[in-house]
């Protein structure tokens, strides 16, 4: 009798021990996660706080402004910033539309059709991708210059759109992986019913591929906001022709001890980051789907 009770107690104890150890490990995890969240948030909190600083526009060693105000945001309007913003926004819209069409064409074809050069084409693009893209930039800049599409002629937007969009067919992997998961029997059934290949795409595949279409649009839209290299090359550092990345970087590029556009940079960064981040957060679900699918299917 007592032995039984001892055993029961031992089991209870073990159970309690498990629970306690689970509680400890969960506590540890919570601590780590909270610490990580703080580290992840600090820079963004700091940039917002510093964008409200009025007393000086230099970089300083403290975070909380001594004097709050919207001066930096007002001053932004008197710089080239609105022009940069407009440039980038136009590019982002155009790239989102055109790049999505190109990527979908490419990935759908490579997923669904079996033609003679398909394997060769995919291998060829794999090899092409191993060349650093910056190499092509040197000559593309000269060509755009010849076509009067570079910053020297005051407007680099059309040229940059062309550069962003033209080779986007090479980024077909993620959406091809998605198309591969849509059963081919759907296509075949529709073909038997007399649909052309084009009708199969518009009426059957595209509605099913909505997540990947949104993913493609989202990544295409976010590209121009962060592009630095190509925009710098093509704009040739002509103020009117820059995008936000090149423009804001030019405010910080001068010596850190002397430059005085630091808070202006913070304000500009906040104005750029908020809409992009909000859009991203709204469409987060699709992004996650695309990223995980892409990595799993290779």
């Amino acid at each position, binding site marked *: 009798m007592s032995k039984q009770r001892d055993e029961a107690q031992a089991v209870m104890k073990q159970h309690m021990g498990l629970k306690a150890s*689970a509680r400890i490990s969960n506590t540890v*995890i919570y601590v*780590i*996660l909270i610490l*990580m*969240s703080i580290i*992840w*948030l600090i*820079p963004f909190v*700091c940039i917002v706080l510093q964008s409200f600083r009025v007393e000086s526009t230099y*970089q*300083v*060693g*403290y*975070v909380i402004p001594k004097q709050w105000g919207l001066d930096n945001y007002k001053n932004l309007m008197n710089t080239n910033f609105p022009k940069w913003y407009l440039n980038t926004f136009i590019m982002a819209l155009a790239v989102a539309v055109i790049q999505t069409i*190109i990527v979908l*064409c*490419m990935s*759908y074809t490579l997923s669904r059709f079996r*033609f003679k050069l398909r394997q060769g084409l995919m291998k060829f693009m794999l090899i*092409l991708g*191993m*060349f*650093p893209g910056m*190499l*092509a930039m*040197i*000559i*593309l800049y000269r*060509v755009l210059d010849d076509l009067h599409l570079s910053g020297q002629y005051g407007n680099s937007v059309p040229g940059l759109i*062309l550069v962003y969009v*033209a*080779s986007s*067919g*090479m980024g077909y992997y993620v959406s091809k992986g998605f198309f*591969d998961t849509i059963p081919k029997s759907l296509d075949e059934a529709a073909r038997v019913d007399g649909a*052309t*290949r*084009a009708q199969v795409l518009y009426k059957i595949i595209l509605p099913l591929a909505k997540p990947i279409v949104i993913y493609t649009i989202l990544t295409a839209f976010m590209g121009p906001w*962060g592009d*630095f*290299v190509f925009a710098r090359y093509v704009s040739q550092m002509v103020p009117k022709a820059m995008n*936000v990345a090149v423009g*804001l*970087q030019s405010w910080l590029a001068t010596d*850190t*001890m002397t430059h005085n556009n630091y808070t202006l940079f913070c304000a500009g*960064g906040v104005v*750029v*980051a908020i809409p992009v*981040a909000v859009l991203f*957060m709204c469409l*987060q679900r699709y992004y*996650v789907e695309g*990223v*995980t*699918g892409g*990595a*799993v299917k*290779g």
Partner: protein
Amino acid sequence: MKIQSEMEYLKLSKWHKFLYRLLSFFKAIPKKIGGGFAAIGRFFKNLVLGIGRGCRDIVATFVKGDWKTKLSYVFMGFGNIARGQVLRGVMFLLFELVFLYYMIFGGGVYYLRMLASLGLQGPSKEYNEILDQYTVVPHDNSFRILLYGVLTIFFVIAFLYTWRANIRQNKIAEEILRSGKPLKSGRDDLRSMVDDNFHKTLLALPLTGILVFTVMPIFFMILVAFTNYNAAKNDGFNNALFTWVGFENFKTIFAGEVNGVNYSAAFGEILLWTLVWAFFATFTNYFLGVFVAMMINKKGIKLKKLWRTVLILTIAIPQFISLLYVSRMFALNGLVNGALKSLGIISQSIDFWGTPTLARIMVIVINIWIGIPYLMLIATGILMNIPADLYESSKIDGASGWKQFSKITLPYMLFITGPYLLTSFTSNMNNFNVIYLLSGGGPTNTNPAISGAAGAVGYTDLLITWLFKITTSGESKYYLASVVGILVFIVVAVISLIVYSVLPSVKNEEDFQ
């Protein structure tokens, strides 16, 4: 290590298997290189044979064909029009006209002729009678000659291919008519564009873009590596000529110290750091990302969505903002030094970006901040796919949490994400943004022979940022940039080749369908 049969191989431990594959890969290299040459040889043999067959066919079609076919040899598409396929015929004819116009009036012949010398006469001042003054006459421009020469070669190949297609069409049309069947009409052709030949329609735009904006520039830049093209040689005003120099530029890179600049040492040092950086950037992100994903996914952890959302912020906010800002946070008079000082931990600012080793550690650590969220997302997706019964049965067998991780989770993850690891390694090698926006490649190398190798080469410079510095600094030695670009390609290609042949999970794409 020698293995006779598959059974023996299967009996080996995991580590031995890997070692065995690695060894057999290196043993197979001579054979593979031989095989590669054989494949290239076969390719050219087939090409020559194919051209030979094509020529015979062209002659035979001419001899056997009727007058419509014969006339098509000169006027492309004539046979199509004469037989009622107006749409096709007009397209052929138009293409021929455009080609001829370009070759004769658009300068095609001139560019081809000049390709060997890249131009003979630079800009000169000549007397202009109308303006009554001396003006600059441009004459030959090597850049244009090389660029349009390459384009012209592409165009000529396309023309020859189309011409051949035109002849074949005539042959086929004659055969069809002889058998008494009707030819395809223009309407049929249009319909096939959205049906049987839909893939050609879909690929036309993307492939043209890739051809013009990727293939052509790469081809051009490979050629530039064999010239002495820099900004001074072709500035568009006073000088416009550069020439072929053979392998001179490759010699420069591998020659050691010349005139106080040591390109070989710079290349070696930068390559080594590039590989070290790519290794750490890939694997720290990978393991920490998996770790974070497992923590968030653990049963009993609440607010999963909140944690994820906070981490994802670094993906949502454009990198140039977050990276530039963080870079300034660690500046001499930045927030971090300010905070440490006011807390009394240090009395003098730490020079995060001015100390070589510290700067290198900083870029890797900050890259973790940027990179973990991606891996967390990917790992979360994969972790959910691992069959739950694997964990349950292992738990019954008494496996600890660590054992479960090392025997189930990690192997599964590695198997599935093998190709992803490879691509992220190579893309980290070319991770321009993180390095350039954080440290700008600095601090500058203390050895003047190395830092002099184009635009202040620094301790955190990757090959790709070096390439950028070469093209944007003073002389803009484009020829050296192309050589570096080619070397980057070779390094990436070799690494990919090795990893692909050692990797267990190179899967058949048809498996998913």
